[in-house]
């Protein structure tokens, strides 16, 4: 029983598989969603797919699209590396695969959260728009070159279940690194 438990790195296997599931899920379900007004505008954001919906038009920003491609490839390679490592944790190439793979889901997760926080801080500082990360807020939006008009919009935002799935994937990959000492003890 102990041999089976230590033959594979089960945390790595679960972490790698969950990472691949996160990629697939994130193409359709955003990590974070912002709704402006009564569904007049929507921002669906994740490290692998970010799009904007406004007046029935959906679009993406090319610069963000490229960042998403980088995020997708990073997570994809991380997931594959973790799975290959996990089924052969004692091979000579396994430790580099683990080192390559285990941090990336966590870093992707952290970069995404830090990026969102920075965007909200910049919007607050430059445009005085109070963008909630979670929950609802009514924010006054400045209208350039127009005085005498106050535009207030209801902003509703929240992290979606795919965000928490990504957190689980990152946690499993970290656990895989810690469990590695059991499946492949240092000589």
């Amino acid at each position: 029983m102990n041999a089976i438990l230590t033959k594979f790195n089960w945390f790595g296997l679960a972490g790698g598989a969950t990472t691949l599931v996160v990629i697939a899920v994130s193409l359709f379900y955003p990590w974070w969603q912002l709704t402006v007004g009564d569904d007049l505008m929507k921002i669906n954001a994740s490290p692998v797919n970010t799009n904007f919906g406004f007046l029935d038009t959906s679009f993406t920003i090319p610069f963000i699209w490229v960042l998403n491609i980088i995020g997708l490839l990073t997570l994809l390679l991380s997931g594959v590396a973790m799975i290959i490592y996990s089924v052969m944790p004692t091979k000579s190439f396994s430790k580099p695969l683990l080192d390559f793979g285990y941090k990336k889901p966590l870093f992707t997760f952290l970069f995404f959260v830090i990026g969102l926080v920075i965007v909200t801080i910049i919007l607050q500082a430059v445009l005085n728009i109070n963008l909630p990360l979670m929950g609802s807020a009514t924010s006054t939006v400045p209208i350039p070159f127009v005085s005498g008009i106050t535009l207030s919009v209801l902003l509703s935002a929240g992290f979606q279940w795919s965000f928490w799935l990504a957190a689980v994937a990152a946690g499993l990959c970290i656990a895989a690194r810690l469990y590695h000492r059991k499946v492949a003890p240092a000589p």
Partner: protein
Amino acid sequence: MDKVRLLLTLITIAIVVVPIVGMLLAYQNNLLGLFIPPELNEIAEDLTGGGEGTNGSGLEPPTMVGEPEYNPATRTYSATFQFKNSFPVDLTIKSLSGNIECYEHGFTLGNASLSKPVSIAAGETGTLTVLGTWTEEAISHFKTAHAGEEFVDVVLVDFAVDISGIQLQLDQSQMEQKMQVPNPAYEG
């Protein structure tokens, strides 16, 4: 083992550098396009009326339909407007409110508000019923300052409208367009 590490490092660099270089090459003649996609321009045209589509005719002010109705017993009136939703998306006018002032004297006459929320499909025209009440002081003002006038020029102030969760408030400088309302104290 070192070869594996080197290969993985090269892959890491490649998956970051290749998309960025590709993007820069693709947009080398239009770097602004990296941040502003063409769809944003189309949306701006739709909103400002520059678009060629049937829905992109910009914002049109509501037009009054028929004569306002007045009930002397309750000092209430109602007016019906037609509003064309020229945006390519369904809208719900959830609320609308404002105060009415005498254009000539700046005297506050009463208030106005939407009778009930109205949903208007994209490109369609909806009917808005606005209800209001003249104050007792307003009736006196109509009698003393506008005796003999069948219609009185008024202006809407402190105007606020909630359209699908977007609240727009206009101060007096944005509401200079005067309207004519029947004088409730006019006796012909």
